[in-house]
């Protein structure tokens, strides 16, 4: 078992490090398709980050060292959190999930505190807004996922008690909503809504510090999705290597779903928006009817 863990986890951590950048590119392409435009290539996020690393950074802040330290620790704890989520998906040991949640809390707080240590009032205002949202949402996220982890036993599904099933469903719904908000998407995209609010948390950063900030944000998006996917798959499928593979297969689908919700909540092209919306509704209804028919005749 121990050897299996090493063989499975080492390449997975490398995969986790690159997957958010690729999925963000897919998300941007999907958003463009839903808004009836061509959009950037799937590799655009990689180009953006590489470009930021290549440009000459402006080091005006006296606190630059602390900024680097807090961002690096945010990324390292993020990857460690992903390691424990994977262990949980493999073994179903609840302690692993609690470790993952604790590490995720450190990732979020170190990332959120970064704009507050920069001597720029606009950065500070943006940072305070992020802290307020974090305090409200992070508490809900950690509580709901802890409860979900405790309840996510296969026996729950066999329970004849409707109350139990309703309770699990409600906790799962809360966890999914909190994970959507924690993924910083519309209308909770404080970091990305900078062009509209003009006092964003990234306002003072340039070059590689900005690249680290954006990467840390993308990594958090990956963690919050896996935090809800792992107990869901455990509940419906069980905890095993196959269960972990199911989690990884469901990851792009969840990412795409969150992106679609963000587009629906955001703006679109006024002239073609109703048509695009109609296409989405028709696709969703057709999928539901197909699933129902397959279930009826199977």
């Amino acid at each position, binding site marked *: 078992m121990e050897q299996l863990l090493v063989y499975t986890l080492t390449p997975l951590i490398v995969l986790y490090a690159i997957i958010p950048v690729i999925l963000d590119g897919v998300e*941007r392409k999907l958003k*463009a398709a839903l*808004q*009836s*435009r*061509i*959009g*950037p290539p799937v590799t*655009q996020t990689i*180009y*953006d980050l*590489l*470009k930021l690393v*290549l*440009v*000459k*950074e*402006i080091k005006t802040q006296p606190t630059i060292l602390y900024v680097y330290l807090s961002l690096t620790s945010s990324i390292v704890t993020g990857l460690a959190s992903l390691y424990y989520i994977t262990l949980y998906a493999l073994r179903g040991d609840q302690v692993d999930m609690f470790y993952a949640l604790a590490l995720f809390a450190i990732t979020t707080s170190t990332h959120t505190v970064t704009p507050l240590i920069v001597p720029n009032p606009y950065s500070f205002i943006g940072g305070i807004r992020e802290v307020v949202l974090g305090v409200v949402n992070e508490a809900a996220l950690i509580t709901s996922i802890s409860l979900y982890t405790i309840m996510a036993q296969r026996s729950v599904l066999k329970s004849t008690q409707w109350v139990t099933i309703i309770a699990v469903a409600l906790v799962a719904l809360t966890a999914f909503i909190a994970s959507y908000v924690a993924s910083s998407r519309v209308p909770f995209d404080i970091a990305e809504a*900078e*062009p509209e609010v*003009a006092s*964003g948390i*990234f*306002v*003072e*950063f*340039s*070059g590689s510090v*900005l690249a680290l900030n954006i990467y840390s944000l993308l990594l958090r998006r990956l963690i919050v999705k896996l935090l809800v996917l792992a107990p869901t798959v455990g509940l419906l499928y069980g905890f095993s290597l196959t269960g972990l593979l199911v989690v990884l297969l469901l990851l792009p689908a969840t990412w795409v779903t969150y992106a679609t919700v963000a587009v629906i909540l955001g703006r*679109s*092209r006024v*002239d073609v928006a109703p048509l695009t919306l109609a296409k989405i509704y028709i696709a969703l209804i057709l999928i539901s009817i197909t699933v129902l028919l397959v279930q009826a005749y199977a």
Partner: protein
Amino acid sequence: MSIKSSILKRSIWVFHLNTGSCNACDIEILDALTPFHDAERFGVKLVVSPRHADAMLLTGPVTAEALPKVINAIEAMPRPRMIIALGSCGCGGGIWHDTYSTIGGVNKLLEILKERGIVVDAVYYVPGCPIRPEALLYAVALIKGIVSKKREMKIYKAE
């Protein structure tokens, strides 16, 4: 083309700076960024801070009042930095080219920047009053090397 310049050209983040324009050019910039013209397909993204920007979209003839802020904003951009001068005003001052309250467009601005030792790596001119969104996209395509220059710049001076 080196790998570095090829990567830099694939991601062009723009910062919009109005230096005293009548606002018509600014509205056309927003038009170029809407889903209809879809500037993002060329890797263009509007950013709020000059710290994030690779190119500055400069509209207006640069009023004397705006000049110190314009210099600050350009200095705040990381290098390599570009200026895309937009409209008749941005390119040469337009109808305000010789009024007392403006410096008369990007060329005068470049002279002032040079005096202060602030380097601008490239300047692109997009004429029009106001500019068309397609013209702005042409400038982006020019930066990326997809299209070639339409005209050589000529400066006509009154006798």
